[in-house]
């Protein structure tokens, strides 16, 4: 099995889809000669040319909207929105248009478009370049929402997103592009709506997304040395949500921690907690812990930035709180 970085894995899915399928193309700001601000599309201009690797002006509304329009006419565009913060600009097109055309037309249309975007703190860009807004899109019927945390997942899920006939908002995490992992030789599509159990455990379930999956695994390893057995589950797709896998895990462990980098208040963890307390009420031995960013914009100074967003030790502390609650 070849080893790919998360960045290369995203590219691999794009390249393979474009090789086999004329309808697939990519568009976004600085994705051509520069290969994207995160280097994801590096080299693709050379292989596919400027018609299928399209640099756009700084026009998030039009770039998102043009991708939707092309999708309505049978193409499978993958539009890159450079930073999640700029999804605010694209949100009218994504939320009022892409998510609703099929419904408003009574099923006449399909909208096979993917909006790739990325965010995440840890490099001190300040308050407008690292927000995590995935929760917004989970609230919008008609959209699918993916947030992958490993090279294998990001490749298999991007592939499935490209070939899904619905609009998919595809979140990548800025600090994960460099991580490496083995992937199958051939792309194995990963079904949208299937969670992944990264680590089995008996005492506490940690449900984590994006960067926090890796922090959760660190925390789990640490907890093990203290005799606490932690199960780590990554939903991978936030919409549709694989509630069954999450609930089954919690019914086994009787304790849950939900962890993501986004602000805790009204973050995705709130939805997971609401689902778990409802479906596993009689199984829960402790309150569901939420780990997420503190309630502040992202500050510039590294010491402050690192204080605002959660890390492995925050997950670990939450895990311990859930078990202490027992005794």
């Amino acid at each position, binding site marked *: 099995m070849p080893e790919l970085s998360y960045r290369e894995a995203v590219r691999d899915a794009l390249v393979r889809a474009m090789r086999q399928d004329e309808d697939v193309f990519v568009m976004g700001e600085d994705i051509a000669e520069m290969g994207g601000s995160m280097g994801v599309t590096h080299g693709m201009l050379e292989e596919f040319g400027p018609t299928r690797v399209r640099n*756009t002006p700084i026009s998030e509304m039009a770039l998102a909207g043009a991708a939707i329009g092309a999708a309505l006419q049978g193409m499978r565009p993958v539009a890159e929105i450079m930073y999640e913060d700029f999804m605010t600009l694209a949100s009218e097109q994504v939320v009022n248009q892409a998510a609703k055309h099929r419904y408003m*037309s009574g*099923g006449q249309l399909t909208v096979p478009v993917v909006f790739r975007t990325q965010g995440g703190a840890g490099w001190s860009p300040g308050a407008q370049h690292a927000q995590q807004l995935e929760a917004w899109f989970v609230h919008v019927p008609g959209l699918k929402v993916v947030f992958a945390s490993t090279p294998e997942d990001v490749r298999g899920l991007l592939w499935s997103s490209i070939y899904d006939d619905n609009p998919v908002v595809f979140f990548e995490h800025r600090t994960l592009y460099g991580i490496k992992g083995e992937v199958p030789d051939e792309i194995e599509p990963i079904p949208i709506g299937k969670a992944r159990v990264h680590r089995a455990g008996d005492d506490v379930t940690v449900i984590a997304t994006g960067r926090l999956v890796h922090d959760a695994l660190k925390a789990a390893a640490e907890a093990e040395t203290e005799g606490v057995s932690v199960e780590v589950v990554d939903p991978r797709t936030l919409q549709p949500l694989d509630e069954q896998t999450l609930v089954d895990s919690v019914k086994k462990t009787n304790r849950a921690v939900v962890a993501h980098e986004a602000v805790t208040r009204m973050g995705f963890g709130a939805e997971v907690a609401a689902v778990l307390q409802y479906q596993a009420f009689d199984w829960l031995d402790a309150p569901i812990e939420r780990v997420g960013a503190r309630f502040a914009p992202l500050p510039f100074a590294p010491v402050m930035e690192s204080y605002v967003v959660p890390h492995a030790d925050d997950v670990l502390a939450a895990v311990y709180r859930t078990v202490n609650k027992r005794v």
Partner: protein
Amino acid sequence: MAKVEATKTALAKGDLRDMLREMLLIRRFEEKVEERFRAGELPGFLHVAIGEEACAVGVCRALEDGDVIASTHRAHGHTLAKGTHPNELMAELYGKQEGCSHGYGGSMHLYDVERGNMGANAVIGGGLPQITGAALAFQMRGEPRVAVAFFGDGATNIGTFHEALNLAQLWKVPAVFVLEDNRWAESTPESQHSPIRDLSERAKAFGMKSMKADGQEVEAVYRTARKALENARSGQGPVFLHLDTCRFSGHYIGDPQVYRPKEEARHLRETRDPITHLREKLGLTDAEFEELDAEVTAIVEASVAFAKNATDPAPEDAMRNVYA
């Protein structure tokens, strides 16, 4: 509806008579919609385009099969002109399954994909970038098709408009952007919403070719639309088509128009009615006109009967079509 021969520049009397019939059908249809809404039969939020029929008919007549349009909140005329049967449109306004959006859309969300109607949009400017994108798809696949967006003067102030036209021109996609300039955005007169008096100036910012026509003269609209479409179709780039038109009624059905001198609308109806203009041009006798009127009125009446007898969706149907 019957297509006019492509290369033709002048229109045969028969074509013009068809257009008159079509404009009259739209007029009577919308008058009926106003009546049924006031009678409390129609749910939702409706906007009629009475006075603007020549824009819809002139442009849609100029289209070829395979061309697509995106419409606005004021969509009945565009929808009928693009070929949706009055029965299907009326059924939609009554929220029935036989409606052109199967009861999911309503007056502001009329779709008829088979006939090239990509949908009416209730968000100002919302459909424009998608027309740029549809045209891009045509360009990438080398199809001789054009994507056409309708929008109003008020829409020229929204960023979506700016970005969509800029991108269309940058990529020279086969699109035509049709401005139906009725000088009102709801209650806001053009002088209060735009710093310039000739909205064709907007096109300059993108280096886009602009063409202008009197939106009350259907033949002029048709001819200019043909040129615009030809320009787009032949790869010479998109066109900004500026149609000077008028809104005879309120912004929405029921609008008391406190903001507008009663005089204005009456004067426009008397002097700028596209139907009266074409009727006179064709020299129709009262008898001939009444015959035409009776014919379209019967179609409209039939559409109401059809709609009322059509099928109500079941409540649970609301959960269908959320995802493909």
